[in-house]
């Protein structure tokens, strides 16, 4: 109690201070940032958790994406960006919090069940079947569909014309950028309600990166909400409707992409001034 500057300093003299009936409640100041999470299409709400029996990596981390939006998770190395994404997709032991898709609680579902529920996920690495042709990769993406998926496939070929050209080539023989297109195409084959991309531009050249971002915007324009983890914070925030800056597994800043780009703190700490 001695550390409390406004404490009673050990005074028990009731003749000068009357403690009887004094109020103890304090009003909360709130977070100061508006976050409309009730209506979010996909939300990982207050997630705390880590891998297996290991220590917690995420601490009360909240990630949400709304219909028709691109949400981007950025942050320094080791901030838990990919981990947060994995937590939303059910590949992390979430010990607290909940994940909801379209208002439905999915925290207990396995990743494959989440795919069935309409989540598309593109892992950062090993995200294509290298020994299979481009077309077979897309077919495997549509494995859970029992209806005719040739429409979806032609839509994907329209979206990524290079894939149509290379359809019968083994996907492992393609360049880095083309592989990422195969990976995104594979995830789109299920006609997901939300698409999650884990660092789609990792390891590709700047030119290819710009092209990939253009393609991602095009995908978003077809009405699929996109949740994306990105290393290239500035470019990602430029196309983002919503941005989350994570630091040490917790939300540090969040807001629209523009706000974050304009925020002096964010600029100073993550965007290099």
């Amino acid at each position, binding site marked *: 109690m001695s550390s409390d500057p406004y404490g009673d300093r050990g005074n028990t003299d009731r003749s000068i201070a009357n403690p009887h009936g004094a109020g103890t409640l304090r009003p909360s100041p709130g977070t100061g940032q508006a976050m409309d999470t009730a209506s979010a299409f996909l939300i990982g709400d207050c997630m705390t958790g880590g891998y297996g029996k290991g220590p917690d990596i995420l601490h009360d981390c909240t990630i949400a994406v709304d219909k028709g939006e691109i949400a981007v998770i950025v942050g320094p190395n080791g901030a838990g960006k990919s981990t947060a994404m994995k937590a939303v997709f059910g590949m992390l032991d979430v010990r607290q919090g909940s994940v909801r898709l379209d208002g439905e609680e999915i925290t207990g579902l396995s990743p494959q069940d989440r795919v069935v529920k309409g989540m598309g996920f593109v892992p950062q690495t090993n995200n294509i079947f290298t*020994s299979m042709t481009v077309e077979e990769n897309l077919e495997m993406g549509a494995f859970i569909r029992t209806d005719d998926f040739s429409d979806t496939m032609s839509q994907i070929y329209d979206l990524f014309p290079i894939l149509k050209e290379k359809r019968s080539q083994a996907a492992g023989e393609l360049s880095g950028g083309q592989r990422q297109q195969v990976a995104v195409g594979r995830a789109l084959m299920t006609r997901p309600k939300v698409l999650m991309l884990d660092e789609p531009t990792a390891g590709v050249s700047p030119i290819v990166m710009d092209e990939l971002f253009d393609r991602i915007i095009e995908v978003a324009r077809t009405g699929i909400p996109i949740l994306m983890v990105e290393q290239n914070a500035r470019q990602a925030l430029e196309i983002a409707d919503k941005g989350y800056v994570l630091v040490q597994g917790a939300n540090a800043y969040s807001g629209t992409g523009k706000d974050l780009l304009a925020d002096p703190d964010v600029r100073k700490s993550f965007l290099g001034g």
Partner: protein
Amino acid sequence: MDFLNAIVALANYVLIPAMSYGSQLALGALGVTLIYGILRFSNFAHGDTMAFGAMVTILVTWWMQSIGISLGPLPTALLALPFGILGCALLVLATDKMVYQFYREQKAKPVILVIVSMGVMFIMNGLVRFIIGPDDQNFSDGARFIISARDFKQMTGLDEGLAIKTSQGITVITAIVVVALLFWFLSRTRTGKSMRAYSDNEDLALLSGINPERVVMYTWFIVAALATVAGVLYGLDKSFKPFTYFQLLLPIFASAIVGGLGSPLGAIAGGFIIAFSEVTITYAWKKILIYLMPESLEPSGLVQLLSTDYKFAVSFVILLIVLLFRPTGIFRGKAL
């Protein structure tokens, strides 16, 4: 004339036996390579799986023979084959449920599964010998030859005869049909593609909604079919003795590794490479050389590079050479 005789002798003693032995090895190696590609371990119990499938087929064949069912000139065993496949499939699926599934759930490393498969091998080995006994069993019936040596001599007037056993003809034809079916299945059907996808990238297959347990189940079924077919063909061609099947493990593994583990095409190529080397090295070439060489140069010995007792050494040496100089095998295996 001497030259023709030499060719006929070569075909009779080397090419045709090696061809059918190669087909049997190829079918066996295909099973090993499928397990390696999809379940990711070398299945030491494969030889005994073959023995079990062959044993069920033999029991059903005997039953069919006893009630008078036959296929005319073809061996009755062909009719019993589907039952053998079914019996073998039940055994491997039960083994998977009771043994391998547990280790998959623990995400055990493949090397653990290799040791586990050795345990399974001993159990299956005992099971087969317990049921049918350790002795030689004869179950082939029908016509023995497609062309017998005497008929061939009469037809062509050559000194050398060419005999093609029914079992050899059936072996090669069955092997071609089975391999064609397998490749069609793996490259054209949805299930086959899902198996290749699972072999290529297990995590991504899971994310694509491919059910791993389903893939594993199909794999075991196909492996049981391949093992039974290979086992029955080997039994028809030579004879059925549980211990020989256990010994077959070495040439089969050599075939799969030489071709490139995980590559079905490699398994077939490897099977024929091992079979042809084994037969050519253990064959006594005197007869053929006598036809081809001038009388003054005729060999006095048998010109047999290695006694047939040492035929397994051939597989070993080829295996060593491949592992030293091209460890991934001819077809650069790993994924289906």
